[in-house]
């Protein structure tokens, strides 16, 4: 990591990832809350504030280039990007991952490349960082639940990783498998989903220049709650396609069964392209709420392929997107 990561003078040592004062603060908060209830007076702190500041180590990524993607977009604040996460391995509440993933260790890390490849291999995260020059990509992210963000990812095209993996002619699909470690991911013990989290892409989707492997955001190493050390970002698809904490990449000739397809086949399909015309049984997909706009921000219209139609629409010519949702 030392090759690519620089520390800011203000950064804490790794031995202090969760400094004792964080825990003490929590204790104090519980005490104060209890006392104030006893006194019959709700104090201005505690009950009336839901933002518990988490002291996390933030590391800048030294070498990455800017790109023109999304340069005109208004970024979703860092605070929102890192505290509003769907990452069920760490809890189903949007706030849970930011707290529950504090102690998660994204290094050392190896990614296993298997299936229809010339030679199965293991790549360390350090080597993955060297696969291709890192660049910033500002992408819109549309969640299937009807909200969206604009996130400045740091990463590299998935195509570069695939070239390095040397898939054979049998590789028609790529499967991404996330870590499912009961010890570091508390909610993996609960069978809410069929762990490990599995996602997949068709080969041409995976090779599309828009598809990236993200290793950072806001110029910093990817926070644990956003999928450290490495996650998939496919900006024209609903957010759940972006598998986090990837440990295995498998090339196959058959369409993989993804976690959400198993959980609700009538709600989640393999393609999961953002499509304002194909409604979800629960959520309106024709409009979305941009996170960070505050209490009085109206919905905005959702665009076909999340506004990336120009780059990706040709991948689906002749396909019925109502059936292949």
């Amino acid at each position, binding site marked *: 990591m030392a090759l690519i990561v620089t520390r800011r003078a203000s950064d804490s040592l790794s031995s202090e990832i969760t400094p004792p004062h964080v825990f003490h603060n929590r204790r104090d908060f519980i005490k104060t809350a209890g006392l104030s209830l006893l006194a019959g007076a709700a104090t201005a702190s505690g009950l009336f*504030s839901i*933002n518990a500041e988490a002291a996390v180590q933030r590391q800048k990524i030294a070498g990455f280039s800017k790109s023109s993607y999304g340069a005109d977009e208004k970024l979703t604040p860092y605070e929102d990007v890192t505290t509003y996460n769907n990452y069920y391995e760490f809890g189903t509440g949007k706030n849970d991952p930011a707290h529950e993933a504090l102690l998660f260790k994204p290094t050392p890390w190896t990614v296993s490349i298997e299936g229809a490849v010339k030679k199965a291999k293991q790549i360390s995260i350090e080597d993955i960082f060297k696969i291709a020059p890192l660049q910033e990509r500002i992408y819109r992210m549309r969640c299937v639940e009807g909200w969206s963000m604009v996130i400045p990812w740091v990463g590299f095209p998935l195509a570069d990783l695939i070239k390095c993996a040397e898939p054979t002619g049998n590789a028609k699909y790529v499967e991404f498998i996330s870590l499912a470690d009961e010890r570091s991911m508390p909610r993996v013990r609960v069978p809410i989903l069929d762990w490990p989290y599995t996602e997949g892409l068709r080969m041409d989707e995976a090779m599309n220049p828009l598809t990236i492997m993200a290793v950072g955001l806001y110029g910093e190493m990817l926070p644990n709650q956003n999928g450290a050390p490495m996650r998939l970002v496919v900006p024209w698809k609903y957010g759940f396609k972006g598998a986090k904490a990837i440990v295995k990449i498998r090339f196959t000739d058959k369409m993989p069964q993804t976690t959400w397809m198993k959980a609700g086949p009538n709600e989640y399909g393999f393609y999961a392209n953002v499509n304002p015309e194909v409604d979800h049984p629960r959520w309106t997909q024709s409009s979305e709420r941009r996170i960070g706009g505050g209490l009085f921000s109206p919905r905005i219209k959702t665009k076909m392929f999340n506004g990336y139609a120009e780059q990706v629409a040709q991948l689906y010519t002749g396909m019925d997107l109502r059936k292949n949702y």
Partner: protein
Amino acid sequence: MLPAPSKKQIFWLKGVIIAIAMIPLIRLFILGWQDSLGANPIQFVEHSTGTWALVMLLITLSMTPIRLLTGLTWQIQLRGMFGLLMFFYVCLHFLAYIWLDFWFVWEDIAYDIGKHPFVLVGFSAFVLTIPLAFTSNNFMMRRLKGRWKTLHRLVYIIAILVIMHFWWLVKKDITEPFIYATVLAMLLGIRIYFNYKKILKKA
């Protein structure tokens, strides 16, 4: 056992309960003022008002089981107030939905209600609470006589619709709606058990 509270005591008790019941609303205002309702403040307001409406509904429905289990009757005098507190939070919940969530775009609201089952059951429950709220006073109670009781049995249907609304909203982790459903099942179960006993006695 403590003696039943006097009329005056009930009056004051109601005042205290109403004041306590306003805390969730005041909390929303304070959090909103501080801009600390989280990343998705609109959803926060919707979930908070919805949850408190459900809590008030379950409290309303627990007055009779308390009577059946303990023989106490004075708490029945609080039932109407709890029902109205539920209606209060239901109205806030609906207002948050049509205003903050959809900005009064009626076309989109109608589509959302028609298309998504969880919204439809929630909306139905809201519509059904309106006649109950307007007939909850003593005047209407006297005027409607026997029909009042029949009308207010709608609350059981409302409760079931509300649980469905919550259950279908949740994507995967049903822990929370399950807890509320269990409480409702217990409250209804106690009624059924005592009714059944009564019927057996008569027979």
